[in-house]
């Protein structure tokens, strides 16, 4: 057993302090230490994008980051998007309206990839959307309805 490290970080606006093994992946830390199981794990080698979360506002893959690296940083997961399931974030609403999800396993990763993308580029073209989503794999939808959700979404402030 290796030495444990103390970490302090903010997740969805809540402060957490834990003592962890340095090899603990951020995805496992969020899911199993903090119980935030909305972040899903699809490949654990940084290829499928399901585990995408925001680190200081930037989309990153939590399966290829160690939780110790998030010490002092701010993480946002899918649980941080909507206040509750009755009041969805506009992007979540758009996914629902366009049928942009089927099994829903990849969906949190798509949402978290799109949040910073749309902040930077609120009215993207279809080609830009497809390019931005090329690092997220969905095995159910064929992407078309996801792309349509993004084309139709309007995120107010």
């Amino acid at each position, binding site marked *: *057993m290796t030495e444990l490290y103390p970490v302090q970080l903010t997740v969805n606006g809540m402060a957490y302090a834990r003592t962890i*093994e340095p*090899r*603990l992946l951020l995805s496992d830390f969020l*899911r*199993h230490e903090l*119980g*935030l*199981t*909305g*972040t*899903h*794990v*699809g*490949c*654990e*080698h940084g*290829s*499928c994008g*399901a585990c995408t979360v925001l680190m200081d506002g930037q989309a990153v893959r939590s399966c290829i980051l160690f939780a110790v690296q998030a010490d002092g940083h701010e993480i946002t*997961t*899918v*649980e941080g*998007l*909507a206040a*509750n*399931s*009755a009041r*969805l974030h506009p992007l*979540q609403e758009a*996914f*629902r*309206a366009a*049928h942009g*999800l*089927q*099994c*829903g*396993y*990849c*969906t*949190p990763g798509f*949402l978290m990839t799109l949040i910073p993308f749309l902040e930077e580029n609120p009215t993207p073209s279809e080609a830009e959307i*497809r*390019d931005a*989503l*090329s*690092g*997220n*794999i*969905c*095995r*159910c*939808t*064929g*992407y*078309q*309805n*996801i*792309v349509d959700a993004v084309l139709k979404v309007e995120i107010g402030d």
Partner: protein
Amino acid sequence: MATRYFGQPIKRNEDPRLLTGQATFTDDVHLPEMLHVAFYRSPYAHARIRAVHTEAARAMPGVVAVYTADDLGAYWQPGPLLVPPPPVKEIIFNPRMQVPLARDKVRFVGEPVAVVVAENRYLAEDAAEQIHLDVEVLPAVVDLEQALTPAAALVHDDLDQNLNAHVIQRKGDYTRARQQADIIIQRKLRYDRGTAAALENRGIVAHWEARNQQMTIWDTTQAPIPIRNGLAGMLGLSEKQVRVIAPFIGGGFGPKIMMFYQEEVLLPWISMRLNRPVKWIEDRQENFYATTQERGQVHWAEMALTRDGKILGVKDVFLHDAGAYAPYGLTVALNSQCTLLGQYDVAHYYSEFTSVFTTKPIVTPYRGAGRQHGVFVMERLLDIAAKELDIDRVEMRRRNLIPPDKFPYSNEIIYQDFAPLTYDSGNYLPALARAVEMIDYERFLREEQPRLRAAGKHVGLGIVTYVEGTGIGPYEGAKVTVEASGRVSVATGIGTQGQGHFTSFAQIVADQLGVTPEQVRLVTGDTAEFYWGAGTFASRGAVVAGNAIHAAALAVRRKILKKASDELEVDEEDLELVDGAVRVKGSPQTAIKLGDLAVRANPMRGAVKPGTEPGLEATDYFGPERGATASGVHAMIVEVDPETMMIEILRYVVVHDCGAVINPMILEGQIHGGVAQGIGNAFYEQLVFDEHGQLLNASFMDYLLPTADTVPRIETDHVETRSPLNPLGIKGAGEAGAIPVGPLFAQAIEDALHDANLEILEIPLSPSRLYELVAEAK
């Protein structure tokens, strides 16, 4: 029937939970004192085991137990045969099933050999790394055509060759048809392996509670009820002591219905042994070996035709790769055999297959489940015949389609449900005509393509047809209950993996009971909620469970009307179910809310009349006499860069007929997703095994799933030919999108590279492979 919600693109009930990260998947289950499991898997494709050394692993920190086959005692048994052999004359069938942990031999890379239980998964993997397997390495059996030669090593030592099964089926007399033919087209065609790669890997949590003598299992299975029944038997428990929950599942596509995976057998046993909850979550690397795969076949096919393009008969002899064990019987190969004739009126058919054991992962159905191969063979032969006879390829198909007055149409041979293959209904010409119109076939060939070719572009068109046998039995059931709140609960036994059952089934119930789909809460995949059923496979969920739910909802409707008639003292015929209430037609102020009626049907005082049941609840079942046959046409236009062989799909059209449509939005989604998997299968995905049976691309870096930039926009339209086999008139749709994409790519790419004299007889393709094929054709 006042149809209001059936047929509407209702937004899905399950989405808010999924979108907010609040839906429970198997790996989200966390129990106090839970232990974690990792497997030590064979690094060899084929070897005799001398010893499994686990001492070092047992001594690792955090390790609670390490088990090998020897530790399992009498629990060590080969798995059951899931599907018995079909009732076909002179069949040879050698079933050999997987074992929980390899004992004498390992037969594929990734076969479980030992299992480590530790305080967390990290520690379990540390310990698994310390296990050492002492073996005599045996020659791998990789190539299908080599597998049956005398030189091949034996995968199962008790067989005298690697023969899993041999089946011949006949319709008419092909030999006679061949004699009458003007032309015979003969080709050898190959289809290679891929993997379903559901984004969620498999996983199991088993929790034995000794105090309650109760076993609860969360399992990423498509078939929770058969899993419960089987595990109860293996564990020596009553079925009532075992509860299997298939929670939200991150995609199934077939392999999640395999029974029984080695891990499924072991986790509950470990939990009982240690009296603690245990969890195993398959990782992506394991998934490439431990989850079943599909698609390896080699066909020698021929088609006999008249000179005006009428098919007289088809002969097809093929090898099917079963992998190391064959627990799923012959379903995949039978599907290939039974789907091959497709939409065409063929009087004479000879089909012979040999299923062979190889030292590769186990083969069981994956979306399409063998249908791809049949469609590939037939459509390719038609394309080649059309070229040879100089007949337009659409015209070639038109001349051979089964005419609408020939339904039900018998193909005589035995299908995967063991009933003779009979198409229940169909109307193929309008769908083909619609696809031709949508892709603008005539104009493309007459104007567009010559113009593009003159400009140096290589753009081609493909158009192919297919059928899909769907909605087979045996049966499903459902229980529908009106609760005191006026809300309706529905329980059914099938699992759900993203098909939208929470919504489409709610629509069926809502129409019968006069409520909204949001007021219908569906529970599926929990054996504590519904006892009977088979599972989600073979595009049968909507057809079989949907009709069972319809039947149960109708029964509740009858109860509601009867009770309300008594309460309101009005004839049943004068009542209607609207807005969550029963009311008198033309006099809506005389009404009773469903919830109030439910309370009155379940009173605290007074008496429930003899001969009636309390509450507003009913259970019913549906079992179709045979499967319903869906059909469709795919067309696409593709541009190929002849220097790099990179492709761009410019248009993709699907015209589909799956009978009555419950929710067109969900149906479109199924088609989009199927096409995406078909595109992967045709041009991106291939499992590459070397001569030692080692898989060379067991990662998402090297196994290429289609991405948002490789899947085009898909244009869809529908033709509706209701199925006479079920009251709702529906046919399954889950697999259709994936089935005909291989031959579509082949035809369109040949057309694009028209000057290369190319004949594509294999799937999957890739730019590198195309470059090779073009070089060979020169």
